[in-house]
């Protein structure tokens, strides 16, 4: 249909030699160059024509047609409101997630490191502090609760940009193609992260591999695309946000709800349906979804009376009553601890620069006891309020082992080999006076499920690194 753009016949624009020259060789080179230039020109013209023809291909019926998407409230402003919320929320998720990774001290020892091939992605690792003692409780509570709360916003954002998925042509230029590939990483990455995180906090381990590895590397795949997306869209977002006032929009009723002016991205429908919901209504519904999720989730990280409000969260009830009635991560039975190893035959072995020392629980109880009020805070986001632990200071045990300035300690549990059966703690964690090998909690012996006969409790330490059923401490310089 576009005869003007059809490639010209080969040779028609061929080389036109001005005159024959005495000098034979340069003439031939020149002729060759001319021929190549002409062929290139022909080829380029042909390619341009092909591109033009492809560009004029009508979209197939269905979602690719501009009239298909009809919601009258879809448009850059609404997308940008959801985008702004995610622009604040997602960096917060990323930072708290990276903090959680650092809290496991993966750079300290091979035993702590489930991602030994992390390479440059661990560039920022630092010595995880013990101050303030509620640090991990806060960061991980925020990470998990915020992730849950952002689900409706994420869904709304994806809903608001659905026409872009079906834009026609699917790829217009190289830049456009690369950008869409990046969007695949963005959308795939964000949902991969949300899904793995949300399944993991419910102990629904159906994802393909170790949660720790998948969620960590997945976060980097996602954030690479997220940063590009922000770079490319920030200007458009702020322009769109300025195009309508939030206050005015929140006062607009259904009768006055109109589509936004047509936008180059094609979010605004060309054939809008009559409105059935105001923008205020849409924002309220999405915000209401987030609020409801917050209400039924946050209590498991706040504890106390609020725990009862976390109606759908995994750790919303006490597993028992009394001094040991607080939340359990993994029971002794769940990790396969043999109860016979916890009876009178149990011994604590202390290693350091001297020959190993061995203690019975009675001997440990006869030593000076120290107390600390510390929470258990889990990577799954739930936590307990401060519990009153008492036992032996790790720093005293280090001195007993002959290494008063120990730089690290390998903690080994009675539990069968597996993830978190042993951990290495850093010097700053050993020498905090609140770091204990606890024997009692809330005035009673530890229960089996809380680590009887002895467990580690360290301020701001991820719960799973507060090893239970400890039987050996190996201090190192």
């Amino acid at each position, binding site marked *: 249909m576009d005869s003007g753009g059809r490639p010209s016949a080969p040779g028609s624009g061929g080389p036109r030699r001005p005159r024959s020259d005495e000098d034979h060789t340069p003439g031939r080179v020149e002729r060759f160059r001319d021929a190549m230039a002409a062929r290139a020109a022909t080829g380029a013209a042909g390619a341009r024509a092909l591109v033009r023809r492809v560009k004029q291909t009508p979209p197939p019926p269905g979602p690719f047609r501009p009239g298909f998407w009809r919601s009258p409230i879809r448009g850059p402003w609404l997308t940008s409101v959801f985008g702004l919320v995610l622009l604040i929320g997602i960096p917060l998720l990323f930072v708290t997630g990276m903090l959680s990774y650092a809290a496991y001290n993966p750079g300290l020892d091979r035993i702590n490191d489930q991602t030994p*091939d992390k*390479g*440059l992605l661990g560039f920022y690792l630092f010595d995880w502090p013990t101050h303030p003692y509620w640090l991990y409780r806060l960061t991980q509570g925020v990470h998990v609760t915020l992730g849950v709360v952002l*689900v*409706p916003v994420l*869904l709304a954002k*994806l*809903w608001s940009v659905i026409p872009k*998925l079906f834009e026609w042509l699917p790829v*217009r*230029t*190289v*830049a*456009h193609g*690369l*950008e869409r*590939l*990046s969007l*695949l990483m963005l*959308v*795939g*990455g964000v*949902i*991969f992260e949300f*899904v793995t995180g949300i*399944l993991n906090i*419910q*102990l*629904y381990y159906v*994802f*393909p591999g*170790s949660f720790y*590895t998948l969620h960590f*590397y*997945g976060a*980097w*795949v996602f954030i*690479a*695309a997220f*940063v*590009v997306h922000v*770079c*490319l869209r920030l200007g458009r977002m702020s322009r769109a946000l300025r195009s309508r006032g939030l206050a005015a929009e929140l006062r607009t009723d259904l009768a006055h709800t109109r589509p936004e002016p047509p936008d180059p991205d094609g979010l605004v429908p060309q054939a809008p349906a009559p409105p059935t*919901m105001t923008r205020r*209504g849409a924002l309220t*519904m999405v915000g209401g*979804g987030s609020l*409801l*999720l917050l209400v*039924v989730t946050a209590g498991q990280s706040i504890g106390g009376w609020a725990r009862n409000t976390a109606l*759908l*969260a*995994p*750790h919303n*009830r006490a*597993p028992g009553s009394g001094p040991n009635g607080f*939340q359990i*991560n993994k*029971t002794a039975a*769940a990790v396969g601890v043999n109860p016979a190893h916890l009876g009178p035959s149990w011994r604590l072995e202390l290693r350091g620069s001297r020959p190993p020392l061995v203690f019975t629980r009675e001997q440990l109880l006869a030593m000076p006891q120290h107390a600390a009020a510390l929470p258990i805070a889990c990577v799954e986001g739930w936590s307990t309020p401060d519990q009153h632990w008492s036992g032996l200071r790790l720093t005293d045990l280090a001195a007993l082992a002959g290494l008063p300035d120990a730089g690290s300690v390998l903690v080994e549990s009675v539990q069968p080999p597996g993830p978190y059966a042993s951990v290495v703690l850093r010097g700053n964690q050993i020498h905090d006076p609140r770091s204990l090998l606890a024997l009692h909690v809330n005035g009673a012996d530890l229960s089996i499920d809380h680590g009887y006969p002895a467990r580690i409790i360290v301020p701001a330490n991820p719960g799973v690194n507060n090893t239970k059923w400890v039987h050996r401490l190996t201090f190192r310089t």
Partner: protein
Amino acid sequence: MTRFVRWYGSSPLHLLVLIASFALTGYAVVRLFAVRPLDVAIWFVGAAILHDLILLPLYSLADLSAHTVLRHQATPEPQVPWINYLRVPTFLSGVLLLVWFPLIFDLSIPYPGAARLPEGVYLGRWLAITAVLFAASALAFALKLRRVRRAARAAEERPAPGQDAAP
């Protein structure tokens, strides 16, 4: 520069940013796919299409069907927009289910043993929340209906304007 823009479709800065991003993506992807690459790829691509090609068509279709099926009940009463009284509780109950379905349907095998917390409470709680949401919506709709009907009756009882002036 213009030739580049014509060929590439955007500015060179666009290309540089994207290449930097893809390099980081590649670095992480190699590690993400190190174990069970096929399964991870299925999960990643599945994640990319989960909302856009599965959830969105389903909920859009449900919304359109609700509109079509429940529209135009011939009643003498004045029409009141009702769709949002159905949409909002459905959405709220739906996001709760979407996030907490493994617990609601007792799908997590290790959960009760690990946390020493009995499963089986979540389905009842979710149903109770759903009941409260729909009941609240029904109540709000009933109040709205009453208000609209009263206003309509009041308008009827008032003499139509201009009646006396009729010839």
